[in-house]
């Protein structure tokens, strides 16, 4: 078992004909992911890495039976790409695109919550179930099959940690990058819930950062519901306050979202706190 994706996932790529789309879908195929096709309006009928390109997601789903869509189109087009995937009935949408306007994401969020699709991201590195499937940017070599679930707001920090874990012999069930944007489709809490339910996952690593209150929510969930041990790292202890959103965001969230506040909450919830992501393996022992 694993969460979100596995060797039976059939992945389509929205934006497969672009430079990044071509490169990363190639990496995914190399990893063994079942990439079944791509979608680029106006390029239907072309082929990339031996996979057919379609003009519409609907057409691609009908022809290939895709059940995961990876979105890698520029920011201005990303919202529509997500709507198209939702309307085509794709159950899992993983949007890697960064720079999507917040207004677009608020509109998407409302539509998404009333659909049966799950969105991971945007502005995230994707999902990796080591040895089975990779959807996103995570470098092919970092993961290793195992029983630690990894969830992170950050992209490169995830690679860093996962590589350190693999090197130390701690394999992963699934690694999920939820993205660091203000509005994201799937939160820490939802992923923790999936790991708690997942038979393969025995321990969980959570990587957060300053800003927002998602880590505080995660701490509350860990305290109330998690039976599996959690190791956490929070980035930004050295960041001066107010460099991110500050102001109105902080008001709404009823706190400042500092690293220390988050670390305290997670520690109080029973999580082990790492000071350095490369020492996370030591805390998994």
């Amino acid at each position, binding site marked *: 078992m694993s969460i979100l994706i596995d060797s039976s996932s059939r992945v389509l790529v929205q934006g497969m004909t672009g430079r990044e789309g071509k490169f*990363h879908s190639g990496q995914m195929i190399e990893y063994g992911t079942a990439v079944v096709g791509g979608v680029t309006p106006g390029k239907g009928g072309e082929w990339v890495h031996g996979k057919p390109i379609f003009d519409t997601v609907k057409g691609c789903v009908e022809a290939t039976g895709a059940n995961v869509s990876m979105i890698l189109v520029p920011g201005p087009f990303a919202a529509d790409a997500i709507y198209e995937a939702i309307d085509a009935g794709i159950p899992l949408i993983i949007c890697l695109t960064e720079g999507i306007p917040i*207004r677009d994401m608020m509109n998407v969020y409302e539509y998404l919550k009333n659909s049966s699709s799950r969105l991971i991201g945007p502005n995230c590195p994707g999902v990796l179930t080591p040895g089975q499937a990779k959807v996103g940017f995570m470098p092919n070599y970092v993961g290793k099959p195992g029983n630690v679930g990894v969830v992170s707001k950050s992209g490169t920090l995830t690679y*860093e940690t996962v*590589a350190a874990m693999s090197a130390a012999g701690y394999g992963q069930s699934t690694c999920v990058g939820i993205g*660091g944007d203000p509005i994201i489709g799937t939160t820490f809490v939802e992923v923790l819930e999936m790991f708690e339910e997942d038979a393969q996952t025995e321990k969980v690593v959570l990587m957060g950062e300053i800003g927002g209150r998602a880590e505080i929510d995660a701490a509350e969930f860990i305290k109330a519901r998690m039976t599996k041990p959690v190791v956490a790292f929070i980035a930004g202890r050295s960041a001066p306050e107010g460099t991110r959103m500050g102001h109105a965001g902080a008001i709404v*969230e009823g706190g400042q979202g500092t690293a220390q506040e988050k670390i305290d909450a997670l520690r109080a919830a029973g999580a082990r706190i790492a*000071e350095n992501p490369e020492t996370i393996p030591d805390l998994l022992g």
Partner: protein
Amino acid sequence: MNLHEYQTKRRFAQYGIPVASGQTATTPEEARIIAGEIGVPVVVKAQVLVGGRGKAGGVKLAKSPEEAYAIAGKILGMDIKGHTVGIVLIDPASSINSEIYLGITNDRTTGKPVMMASSEGGVEIEEVARVNPSAIIREWISPSLGLREYQARNIASGINLPREHWAAFTKIARNLYRCYVESDAVLAEINPLVITGENELFALDGKMVIDDNALYRQPELAAQRDTSAEPLVETQARDAGLTYVKLNGQIGCMVNGAGLAMTTMDMIKLYGGGDIFPANFLDIGGGAQADRVAAALRIILSDPDVKAVLFNIFGGITRGDEVARGILQALKEVPTDKPMVIRLAGTNSEEGRAIIDDANIPNITAASTLTDGAKKAIAAARGEA
């Protein structure tokens, strides 16, 4: 991107929100003429993209055109928290009966815009939130429906606004919401929204922050960016597509990804022994290509406090070979003998390391891990390398 008060109020006026009929001046003489035209008393207000100008003496009442001239002369050129005042706004002074706070921002938790109001206007809303949180009334807005009239009534009722003002308030609230949406704002606030002695409502001060990711479709707002007061490197960083924040340490950092960039800073602080700190936050973003890396290096090296540079690149969408080429390109344009520690991992990192090795640059040291890189950079900054 922040708008100045005067820019915000002009935008508000376009959306039918009543504002003071003030004008901007860049010289004392202009201030004198404007004060004569709109009638005294006037308020002379420094236009800076930073809070706390009132306490800094950037807002003053003038009872005559001559006084406006004198005050403008003092405020123009003033330094407020590192920002130089280049523009003052001359607003007519008003009789104020009461002050309200009214603002909209996006709420991460619900994924919706939230309108906030408080009968305690004129002070910082964060302060109200801290001292008297129940004084803030919130109304979450469905993006598909927009702000409805009953929501404005819920707010008016919640802040105990006298019912005679509900119609005017509702109109202002709905116009503010429209302005927020159509401007792609992440914050639009009127603080204070005043009720005058003549029982009229208008926006005395306003603030808007525009979503940088949406500026491509807001050309009118994008053109209003005022870079004259901000440090040159911030302008350069933005133009190059980088996120750069200057700090007060000795190790210049170039990292891909905000989380890893912060973590790299954290490691420098962690292992820096209390005397070595990061000199900056710098995220070169995803998929950074050679020219962006070069621009980043140029910015880092422009900081005279930087004693060593740490590159920490874990490729994913960013590719190690491109970063390596970027470093070499930048070093050609900005030769430096400062020690540099380069750690490349992830996608195409072997190719990248080979490119760096082949260039055979004496002041470059390779590092294998994040911790290794941080420790080597700290040693280099101490002159121990």
